[in-house]
């Protein structure tokens, strides 16, 4: 069942279009990620869902009930939308104890004192903070504060859980653990969740679906594997993981195969091409780990390159190679590659250059 729909959201700040016809849906119990660089409109989208920003146009419904509909003048205020929100800053109220922070939404809903205490204890146990109810925010670590924020958001069983870059204030080690923990908790509670992040690892590892945003518009929607392996455009390819762009020219196309000449070389490489590819200047996009050292019995397209340098990155190496005018990266676990490696071209895509 569709728990959340966002339809044609548009919002402009002065001349700048912050949201440009943003549309997506989230199914019941799913974790949906809004992924994009800062300023892409992902937070504005989240705030619009929460009722903290008012879009100019569009429609937002929770389980079929409209909470915002510009056409019909519906705009439920934030306090009536029943969204649990975890803020990037956590926004724990410093003058209240952990218990009072979590109890606040229950108090507003006039939950009797005894049940309130029981529910607070239950939610604190859920986020593994039992025993800290009497503490004040300044006595908690960053990770604990974040869990208080989560407990507060979950306390009154909201219809949607909204998370705004919740891990950005944690250090790298803690962040990894927190991701796994949160994903597990979200699945146990089964709450529909919208998660905002600019971190592709986070998006890929946690989400049921990823919405990649760029310049206020949706660039691609799909499961993490789709977005990574079949990026719809250069922006998505580059933002989700890294991609080498090898400049050159498509000299001919036939039957889904293009003859591609890398700039500064004479030999053509036969690469896959979809229907939109026409002869002319283009970039060949290939991820560094999709370039492998060709063994003797190689089939498929290869590129012969020249070794330039390398960087050691802990669990792998990144070798810099040159072919014609192009310099690009090859990623593998081998410390040394030959001086003139023959590289097998794995998953790749051609991006025609705009004539401009």
């Amino acid at each position, binding site marked *: 069942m569709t728990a959340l729909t966002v339809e044609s959201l548009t919002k402009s700040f002065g001349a700048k279009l912050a949201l440009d016809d943003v549309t997506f849906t989230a199914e019941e119990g799913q974790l949906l990620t809004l992924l994009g660089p800062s300023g892409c409109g992902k937070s504005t989208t989240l705030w619009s869902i929460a009722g903290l920003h008012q879009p100019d146009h569009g429609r937002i419904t929770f389980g079929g009930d409209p909470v915002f509909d510009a056409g019909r003048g519906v705009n439920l205020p*934030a306090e*009536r*939308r029943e969204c649990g929100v975890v*803020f990037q800053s956590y926004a724990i109220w410093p003058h209240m104890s952990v218990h009072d922070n979590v109890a606040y939404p229950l108090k*507003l*809903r006039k939950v009797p004192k005894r049940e309130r205490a029981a*529910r607070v204890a239950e939610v604190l146990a859920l986020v593994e903070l039992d025993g800290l109810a009497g503490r004040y925010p300044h006595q908690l670590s960053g990770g604990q504060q974040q869990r208080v924020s989560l407990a*507060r958001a979950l306390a009154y*069983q909201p219809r949607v859980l909204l998370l705004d870059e919740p891990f950005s204030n944690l250090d790298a080690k803690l962040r990894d653990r927190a991701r796994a923990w949160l994903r597990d908790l979200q699945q146990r509670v089964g709450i529909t969740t919208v998660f905002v992040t600019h971190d592709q690892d986070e998006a890929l590892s946690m989400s049921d679906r990823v919405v990649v945003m760029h310049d206020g518009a949706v660039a691609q929607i799909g499961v993490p594997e789709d977005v990574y392996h079949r990026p719809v455009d250069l922006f998505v390819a580059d933002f989700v993981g890294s991609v080498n762009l090898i400049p050159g020219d498509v000299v001919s196309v036939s039957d889904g195969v293009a003859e591609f000449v890398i700039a500064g070389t004479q030999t053509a490489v036969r690469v896959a091409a979809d229907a939109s590819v026409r002869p002319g200047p283009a970039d060949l996009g290939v991820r560094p780990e999709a370039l492998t050292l060709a063994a003797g019995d190689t089939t498929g397209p290869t590129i012969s390159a020249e070794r330039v340098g390398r960087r050691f990155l802990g669990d792998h190496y990144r070798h810099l190679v040159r072919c014609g005018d192009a310099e690009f990266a090859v990623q593998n676990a081998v410390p040394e590659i030959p001086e003139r490696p023959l590289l097998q071209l794995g998953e790749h895509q051609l991006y025609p250059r705009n004539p401009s």
Partner: protein
Amino acid sequence: MLTVPALRRSSWAVRHRSTAVQYLVWVLTVVVVVGPLVPVVWASLWSTPLYDDGGSWTLANYRNLLSDPAWWTAVGNTAVFAGLATAAALLAGTALAVALNRVRLPGRRVFRALMLAPILLPGLPLMLGWISMYSKAGYVTSWLDRHTPVPVFWDLYTVPGMALVATGSLTPLVYMVVSTALATSDHTLELAARTSGAGPVRALLSATVPLLRPAVLNAGVIGFALCFEVVGLPMLLGTSNNIDFVSTYLLDNWRNAYPPRQGLVSAGAVLLLVLLSALLVLRNRLAGDLARFTTTTGKPAASEPITFRGRWVVSALIAWYFAVTLLIPAAGLTLQAFTSVLSPFIDPWTVLTTDHFHTVWNNNQFRRSLTNSLLIAGVGGLFATIAVTAIALVAHRSQMRMRRGLGHVVLYPRAIPGIVTGMAFFWSFALLDKGGTIRSSLWGIGIAFAVRSLALGYTAFYPALAALGEDLDRAARVSGADWFTAMRTILVRILRPAIAVSYVLLFVAMFADYDPALFLVTPGNEVIGLTMLGLWATGSAGPVAALALIQLAVTALVLGLARLVFGRTAFRRTAQ
């Protein structure tokens, strides 16, 4: 799992109370700040006083004012006075700011504390101390004349003399503005000069001081504007030599002219208001108005003060400055209050007395003015604090359509001279309160004082509010609280210390204020400042000094208690 009931559907009234509160605050603020100025402008363009029937539109008031040579003399005097006082205060204030903040001077902690005293303490008592020490017949002057060859070249009863007295109170203001700029200036610039080969003093003078120019300019505009509304000083020192300032010219024509020239006075008030508003606009251009508060949260790392030989000489000079401008006048005031006669020809220890305090206590007018001032400051300050909190929350934490203008409206009273505020409320009461019930109660003066202090309270409160992330209120909203509940249960609670500090500052300011009361006072409603001004002239210096001392003591007590409770940083930050 327990099921949580949904938010109850609230009544129409509850659903709309946030909006209602926001609009109410907006309307009330505009009405009390800008509203009273309307009748002043009207009165300046009307042929008869507004409380009389009849009359018609006219420019005669402006014509009469601008063709009165006495007006131009007053404007000239005020301009010369403002120019001299501002220039002197800029020099002294900037030098003190650099010396006390950037040089490792012996005693600088004490000096810094002394620097704040003239800003926080009421000005009139210190002024009286100056007069009793340094005027022609003053204690110090007579003593120097008699016992030393130092020629007495100064005369407080002249325009430069009054500028000298004003310098004493303007300097700390310049000091505050420049110190703030120094605290946020980039210390590495100075270090870069050091690595290029400049000595510490040279580096300070060539890298840091030139960058203070915007702050100095800003302080200059503030100081100049303040000089134009000064009223107590020319009343005390100008009257005997017939030196009129703009303020005393207007006051004199209001009170003593026959037939009354209230139209002309209103015209003068409008011109004064236009001038000061223009200066405020200029200042905002220079300083980027609210931006100056955000720097208070700036870099926490303090830069290392420099040191050089001969800094003892600088310290001695500064000590001398404080002795002359602060300690001797304060001591003089105290002596005045505790002796039956204060004169260098009589040993003060032989004429010690507490009679003056008895007089204050037994005299109805003295006692009443003290209780009136305490009431106005205590109760009025409370209302003003509530108003400031509400206004700041609507202006900065609501989604109300017209919220942005509100911050400017509440800061505008800075550009309204005290006597114009007084006149504005006089006309407003004359029009709206024909029976005179408000005017004859303390509420009349209290409201005028409160409006005048709004800007101060707001500037004290705003930095604390700005430092609170908006996620805190957003979190309350998404939890199910409407705007009003979010403000009440979250922001106001967290901001309690800042609200208390605002209250203390408003109390102190309203306890010391008297300018607007010059136009509003009715028998029985005197405030301390007015009583002191009125009775000093009649020669009862002793009881006035006693009253002044009581005013100082109450203020110091309130500030001291507040500092104990809230720590000192809160005041350092807001004193400007």
